[in-house]
């Protein structure tokens, strides 16, 4: 019996293979340096993991810091203001650092009647899950924390656990507004995970891989512009659906219902202050970045751009310089996504909770299914034609 059409569409060889097919780049690096024989392997492994966690924390803090700064500048200029201008000198670049220091100094307040344990661990869960999801974030073709065949699946899975932290925060605060925020978050995230995953299916069908690195490598033709969004008619609408669902998943306006400041004061954040509060914000901005990375990887070519194509055709592949170009390309694409999220936030009003549900279940889910269908059909047609 012959396998069905969909399976023949993508021959096994088409999945690009990058030089390092599996494992942890850091561990390889450590092994290359060659630690003394007498140190047990597992200590070396733990150190590699520790270094990875350190780099991740650095990345998350940097992303959060500069996304916050960018948000303030973008919103400021959209509203005919300037945004922060003093701290640090040039356009207030150190404003977020100053704010962070202030938040660290703030009194650690836990409301009376709050569930202390849950109140304390909730920001931790939120931050831990976003760290976990960021493990799948590749820095370049040769440097990554974990090369996984299931990278996108892992990001979605671990990213969805932030919900539990938010619900926990809302419930533990012992405030009615927080409880409302938590319930909205629960309802909203459950509703939007479906269209998010379904919309992602369209480029996954186009590219035929779950791995972020492979997805990027597959889009390297056409002078580095064979981006999935150009290669399948379903991918553009799928991107729009994905983007709307991503806004809802990251609690960004117009879907910022869990913290709707005009309705619920600050939702689940009402009782939080100081460094715990900033954890939620780091999560929010890291999640925005992560969603943008997914979009960049699966729709907009990942590391690939004419620059990487030129380098590759000049024979420069691998090595620090190529890696840096890859990384910069990805970060530019990701921050373009973050900027789009900000632009939408400062343009649109907030959606009501029943409309959020209607939109998720009645509009996005069926349309995303339609996109999956179109993507599959057009892939099959393509494989028949070419």
């Amino acid at each position: 019996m012959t396998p069905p059409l969909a399976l023949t569409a993508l021959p096994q060889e088409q999945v690009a293979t990058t030089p390092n097919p599996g494992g942890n780049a850091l561990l390889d690096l450590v092994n290359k340096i060659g630690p003394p024989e007498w140190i047990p392997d597992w200590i070396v492994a733990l150190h590699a993991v520790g270094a990875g966690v350190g780099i991740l924390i650095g990345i998350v803090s940097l992303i959060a810091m500069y996304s916050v700064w960018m948000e303030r500048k973008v919103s400021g200029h959209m509203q005919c203001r300037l945004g922060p201008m003093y701290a640090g000198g040039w356009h207030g670049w150190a404003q977020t650092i100053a704010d962070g220091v202030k938040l660290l100094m703030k009194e650690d307040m836990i409301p009376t009647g709050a569930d202390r344990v849950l109140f304390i661990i909730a920001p931790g869960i939120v931050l831990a899950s976003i760290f976990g999801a960021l493990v799948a974030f590749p820095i370049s073709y040769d440097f990554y924390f974990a090369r996984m065949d299931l990278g996108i699946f892992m990001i979605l899975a671990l990213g969805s656990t932030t919900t539990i932290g938010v619900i926990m925060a809302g419930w533990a605060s012992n405030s009615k507004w927080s409880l409302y925020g938590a319930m909205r978050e629960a309802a909203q995230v459950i509703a939007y995970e479906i269209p998010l995953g379904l919309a992602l299916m369209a480029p996954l069908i186009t590219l035929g891989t779950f791995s972020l690195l492979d997805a990027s490598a597959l889009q390297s033709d056409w002078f580095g512009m064979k981006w999935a969004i150009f290669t399948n008619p379903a991918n553009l609408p799928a991107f729009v659906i994905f983007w709307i669902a991503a806004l809802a998943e990251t609690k960004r306006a117009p879907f910022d219902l869990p913290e709707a400041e005009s309705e619920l004061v600050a939702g689940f954040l009402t009782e939080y202050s100081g460094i715990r509060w900033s954890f939620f914000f780091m999560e929010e901005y890291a999640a925005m970045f992560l969603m943008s990375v997914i979009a960049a990887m699966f729709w907009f070519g990942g590391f690939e751009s004419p620059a990487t194509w030129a380098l590759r055709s000049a024979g420069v592949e691998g090595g620090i310089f190529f890696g840096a170009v890859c990384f910069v390309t990805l970060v530019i694409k990701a921050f373009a996504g973050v900027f789009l999220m900000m632009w939408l936030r400062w343009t649109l009003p907030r959606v009501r909770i029943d409309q959020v549900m209607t939109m998720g279940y009645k509009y996005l889910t069926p349309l995303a299914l339609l996109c999956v269908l179109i993507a599959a059909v057009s892939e099959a047609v393509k494989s028949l034609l070419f």
Partner: protein
Amino acid sequence: MVEQTQEYKPSIQPSEEGRVLPSGEREFFFDVSTSDLEVNMGPQHPATHGVMRVLLRTDGELVTGAQPHLGYLHRGAEKIGENVEWLQYLPYTDRYDYLAAMNNNLGYSLAVEALMPGLEIPRRATLIRTICAELNRIASHLIAFGTYGLDIGAFTPFFYAFREREWIQALFEKICGARLTYSYIRIGGVFNEAPPGWLKEVEHFCDVFEEKWKEYYDLLALNHIFVMRTKDIGVITPEMAYDFGLTGPMLRGSGIDFDLRRDMPYMDYTEIWEAGAYQIPLGSGEKGTLGDCWDRFDVRVKEMIESIKIVRYCLGVIEPGPVLGDVPKVIKVPPGEAYVGIENPRGELGHYSHSDGGKVAVRCRVRGPSFVNLAVLEDLMPGTLLADSVAIIGSTDIVVGETDR
């Protein structure tokens, strides 16, 4: 955690008898009752536009009852009016509807002038009064527009609205020296002649504002999310509007064509109306039901452009002349009583003044439109969602300073 308003009953219980649906079908499903939650919206809440408190009873996201509580900003304004001289009360009128202080000044001045039949107001003063009152109506509606955007969750229109409002305030600052509490329109005319070039600047403002106004409409009023959030929400039927004695955009949003500027004319509004300079925008039910939040919002936004037309008319006919009638330094008002209602941005602002011929009023009474319009909340809120209740409070455009006085 959850405050209970009634004794706990098992959450799931069968309905005593199924409801009969319009289709004739009888409904038999378990009535899942969650416990009600009583929430204080305010006095410190971002949606209440000041220190107003609404006690909400909610079932999940559904509001089942609402009770506005007043008095957090009560300063005894009316009693003060009975203790200070006629002119000295003028700065206090600034402070009840602090977003439309010119209109308050105007209302009070007209009420006192009604008791002084010998006093003649120069034409130039009347026209400057009209310009100021209409500019202040625009400034006030800009706040209503911006903060309504904030309530619905859009930040940026607020800043655009404030940009133009600041311009109006700068104009007022030039003519009277204050940005919020103007005390400019006084008994007998206005305090100062407009500085040279001021009227030109107003004209320039009118030109720019007309362009910006289109942007407001596109950015917020026609936005699909905004329309979905505000249509069919907080519907005030025309009957309801009559019954509650609503005035201003709240009334016109329900489609009732009533505007004090035309129907109980004061100053020279009759002349402007007869010249065809302005229309009275009415709620049309264009996006949803007649009298919903969108209609009220729409009326406010459209009134801004009508005010611009009035200002333009006044700029066309204004001529040099005195700006203050013949009033003594210490005003003594002949005995009598008078009530004058004017069209404030929020509705009918009535001033009742009663004089016994002395330097001080015997009775000073103010009918604040916000206070009257607030009463309708209790009927509008039940059955809406929590987010809708915010939209409804926003669409009433309350100024708490005026509600409590």
